[in-house]
């Protein structure tokens, strides 16, 4: 395997840890942290491609800057939604939110 592939394996591992956190953890704050981990795993993959694939130089690092900004906006909105919900129900446990089913 060449360098890019090793970085992609690492990124995929981090991504899966994040995905596991989103799917399995109940605390909403930790869910948001796991979402951030997923985005950062992608950032790692993007920089690796930009660095090691000669034809692909440039755009990947640019992409990462945008992803970092968007991740910040996303976590802002997410925490605001969690706080609004906390005021209604006094809990940040995901499994307490089950009013709608079917």
């Amino acid at each position, binding site marked *: 395997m060449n360098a*890019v592939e090793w970085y*992609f394996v690492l*990124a*995929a591992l981090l*991504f899966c840890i*994040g*995905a596991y956190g*989103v799917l399995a953890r109940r605390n*909403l704050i930790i*869910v*948001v942290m796991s*979402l951030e981990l*997923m*985005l950062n*795993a*992608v950032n790692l*993959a*993007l920089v690796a*491609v930009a660095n090691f*694939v000669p*034809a*692909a130089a440039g*755009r*990947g690092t*640019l*992409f990462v800057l*945008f*992803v970092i900004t*968007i991740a910040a*906006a*996303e976590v802002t*909105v*997410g925490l*605001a*939604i*969690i706080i*609004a*919900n906390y*005021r*209604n*129900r006094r809990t940040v446990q*995901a499994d307490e*939110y089950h*009013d*709608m089913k*079917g």
Partner: protein
Amino acid sequence: MDAQAATAVNNSIEVILPLIVVSAGALAVLVADLFLGPRTKGLLAWLAAAVLVVTMAVAVGQWVTFSGGLSFSGRAPEAGFADMVVMDKFGLFFVLLFGAAGLLTVLLGDAYLAARGAARGEFYALLLLVIAGMIGLATATDLISFFVAFELMSLPTYVLAGYARRDPLAGEASLKYFINGAFSSAILLFGFAVLYAISGSTTFSAISAGLEEPSLGQGAAMVGFVLIAAGFGFKIAAVPFHGWAPDAYQGAPTPVTTFMSVGIKAAAFAGFLRLFAAAVLPAWEVWTPILMVLAVVTMIVGNVLALPQRNIKRLLAYSSIAHAGYLLLGIIALGETGDQYGSSAVLVYLVAYTFMNVGAFGMLVFMRNSRPFFRYTLEELRGYGRTAPLPALALTLFMLSLTGIPPTAGFWGKFYLFSAVVDAGQTWLAIVAVVMSAVSAFYYLRIVWYMYFEAAPDVLIPGESTALPASAGAVAAVAQGDHREVAERPAGDAGSSTVMSTIAADDPAARAEPSAAPLHADRQPIDAHLVETDTGTVAALLVAAAGVLFIGIWPQGLVWAAQGAVRLLGGG
């Protein structure tokens, strides 16, 4: 700055002119909100509507003066910002569609928000920001601008879904939508990273060229496209990524649900249609089977799960999942044939779907505004055909259109989609789609059945029977332009239970919510006096009904426009 660079900047500005108008409008609404008092907040709706009208006018002007004759997969003279965005007829077509969907939502939203005494400034600002993101998505020709627009569209929608923030259901809807949406964005982004690694570029035209000689193997491409399809599937609520949709649709305020079901879906299809047509068409053998699986599963599961629903909002949520399945057929046809017939069928369907779904959800807004205890259940529709003949007729029209019965817009939408997929040699997919359309007739027409053939309950049940004369009163009020006057008049012609119910409606005790769910603001009776007039909702319904009938009777104009829009999209 030399002259050449200045021209390039001017071109770039012109490319994103509709986007600039909408974004500036969103900020203008926010600022105007600060200076308007409680009595003049209604002006904000007019301001938002004016912004959308200007945007659409700009788009019409650009369409008329459109000079392009080159392939628009990124290298046209109209491409701006280092090939990041392009404003071609495809983009302009969607600017007009998003503008129309936004205008209808403003019309629906105003009376709904006023009745709850909700703040209106942020609502319109967020709505305009979502539309800005949608326009960006339809015009993006680079993975970077695509992702930025995708998030600009998604983030305000999470907030809008929870707009009634004291309502726990709306909060739950917003939360589920956010977590699922952010999760899917990350998956999509990883797919983009893989695509970038394979093709060596993020620009659509360069991806297309790079995929002819991919740097990684077929397996990597498969992984990448599965991830992209998953992100796409989440956004359009395709099975098995649909889990959030019924909850988010049910819990969100109904005008927001309307917009989510038509606007977001149309924008996601616009963005991904361009991605599939202009960037990844060379790899069609890899992604078409993935979309086929998605389409079949979505059509079957969406329609079957809609069958047992008793809550109309939830039923329409499953129906909109099913419609996403039909729409995927157009992209499959594009992949199989490489020509743009399938793409134009998707555009036709999205326009038809916008009108009929705005109509269906708009009817829910209308009933909710006119009946203080309306809970969106099928049972409450009993006798609606007798107490409110015109609204019942409108709802019937929208249900027929959603089923796909001529002469409505829904029929032509399905006709072009299914014939596109037959032309692509995938007749079995068309057969599945037709069979599932027949299944969908069962739950759509059941709504009609309840309105006309189930007798209205004549026992006075708190929370249900008061609603019937109220709706009759509201219909009369719309006709006469003054709600309060009619509400106070003992209308003796609206059915036998009228007098008793009018008394009940005036009795404060009868207004009290049954103790089951006291916290749920969206379920609490609204103050009917705050619904000054329901003119906006009625106007939106009239436009939707006119659109459904117009396209149903004369689809050719729309088909021409759609074919013009996709001609230069890329591919064959």
